[in-house]
């Protein structure tokens, strides 16, 4: 009987456990994690913060489904890996022997470095316990400051404001999420934030946080202002939790370097999820994705390989959907991108592939509430940002993933950007006539 040890309790570890159990009813599966509660949707924490769902709703599997996996769960931190001996030591000294190991330790948010960052009231959002603690603080806080970029910073700002806390969002640069969005897209999100009641401060950063008896009371900013606040929420990026792998001399770059079966450089040890850095043949380099669907797929592939079913990971085109301000936004593929002073590293729900080095042209269609931007080269669509109406999400994902040759419509796209949507839809129907128009029932039936 093979003993599988999985380190982590996110979607990558869960998917691996499900994959192993699907092909091996007898295997022993031990799951080690410092989180011991039910498996939950990490992206769903944004909606918990905003008050849209209760915590119990975030559980992603029923008790029966978890029971059927017959996991042995150990609530402990994995302390040290001995790959040659196939042993994992836990904090506290217990040692587990494994036949196959999965490292799915995820990523953790980066701590800020301004003086006073250790005061009580300076918070980050990594897991459900952080969300719980933040909600407890929100009841007492009147004013909050949010720093950082990407969707997590925005979710924090909107969540705090929705909970009745006067929220100030500090941007170091001129605009929101410059790494992924263009100027107009940033402006659309910023106006959504303003409508929600969040106060935006551009070219503003925290010089120091001030407190009394260890408790946060105010911040000094670079423009010599002092703002009284009880909470600072920080989302300046995440880093893969690679310590376990690095200390065991596994091949580690920004994340744990894995091959196409999600195997690491150590025998019988695999990695998946936010901690893994997987090679992308299309890009010709290994990239980090902090995306739910990528983590789930990597976990599944790793699990099958651990159970002896040879399976190759095919990296899908990087895609994420988030609600930015009041606009549903889909980012697909390589969309260009600029420097972003608000982020130290990649943020959650992002892919390094979005800010590719490819040279391309951006084409934009924009009307009152919706906006589509596609990034093209001479032959294909490299990436897209779709805000508002999502009718083109499915066709564009396909075009980008398959590098579909758009030579026949390229001229029309460039000459008539205002007709971008109809040109693309027509092209989609001409290629895939059996497809119904994507979501064309949507607008008529949605309540």
């Amino acid at each position: 009987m093979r003993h599988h040890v999985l380190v982590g309790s996110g979607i990558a570890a869960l998917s691996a456990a499900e994959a192993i159990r699907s092909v091996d009813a007898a295997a022993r599966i031990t799951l080690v994690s410092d989180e011991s509660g039910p498996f939950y949707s990490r992206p769903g924490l944004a909606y918990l913060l905003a008050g849209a769902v209760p915590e119990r709703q975030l559980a992603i599997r029923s008790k029966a489904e978890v029971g059927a996996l017959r996991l042995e769960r150990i609530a402990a931190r994995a302390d040290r890996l001995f790959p040659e001996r196939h042993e994992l030591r836990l904090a506290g000294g217990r040692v587990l022997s494994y036949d196959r190991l999965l490292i799915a330790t995820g990523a953790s948010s980066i701590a800020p470095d301004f003086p006073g960052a250790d005061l009580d009231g300076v918070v980050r959002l990594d897991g459900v316990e952080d969300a719980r603690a933040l909600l407890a603080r929100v009841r007492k806080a009147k004013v909050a400051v949010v720093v950082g970029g990407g969707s997590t910073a925005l979710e924090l700002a909107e969540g705090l404001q929705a909970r009745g806390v006067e929220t100030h969002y500090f941007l170091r640069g001129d605009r929101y999420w410059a790494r992924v969005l263009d100027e107009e897209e940033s402006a659309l999100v910023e106006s959504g934030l303003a409508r929600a009641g969040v106060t935006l401060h551009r070219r503003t950063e925290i010089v120091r946080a001030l407190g009394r008896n260890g408790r946060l009371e105010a911040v000094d900013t670079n423009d010599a202002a002092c703002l009284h606040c009880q909470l600072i929420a920080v989302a300046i990026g995440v880093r893969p939790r690679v310590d376990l792998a690095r200390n065991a001399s596994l091949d580690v770059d920004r994340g744990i370097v894995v091959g196409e079966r999600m195997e690491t450089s150590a025998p019988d040890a695999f990695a998946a999820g936010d901690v893994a850095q997987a090679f992308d043949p299309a890009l010709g380099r290994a990239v980090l994705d902090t995306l739910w669907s990528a983590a789930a797929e990597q976990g599944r592939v790793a699990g099958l390989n651990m159970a002896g079913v040879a399976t190759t990971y095919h990296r899908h085109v990087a895609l994420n959907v988030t609600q930015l301000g009041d606009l549903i936004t889909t980012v697909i593929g390589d969309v260009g991108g600029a420097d972003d002073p608000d982020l130290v590293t990649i943020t959650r729900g992002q892919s390094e592939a979005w800010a590719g080095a490819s040279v391309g042209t951006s084409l934009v269609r924009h009307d009152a509430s919706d906006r589509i931007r596609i990034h093209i080269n001479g032959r294909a669509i490299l990436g897209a940002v779709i805000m508002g109406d999502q009718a083109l999400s499915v066709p564009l994902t396909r075009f980008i993933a398959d590098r579909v040759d758009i030579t026949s419509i390229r001229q029309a796209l460039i000459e008539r950007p205002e007709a971008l949507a109809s040109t693309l839809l027509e092209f989609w129907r001409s290629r895939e006539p059996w497809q119904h128009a994507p979501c064309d029932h949507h607008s008529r039936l949605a309540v």
Partner: protein
Amino acid sequence: MPRKKHLPVDQERLALLRSARVEPVAGRCVQCGLCSYNCPTGVDVRGYARRCLAIDDPRCIKCGTCVARCPRAVLCFGPIAGAIA
């Protein structure tokens, strides 16, 4: 059946409802559970979305609440193959 003034019925909507069902779009769902939480008849919409299956549940009244509530546009109405619109 003639339409009665006191019972407004959107015929176009009804015809569409007969021929359509709620479907997830692959790769977009993060299992947040807002759909299931808001379903007025208690369908586990998230479970269908996870498996990328169209919602096929006798309790589904096709009200569209899940479609409208999903923060990531995972769900949409799609035609049932073979149905007469």
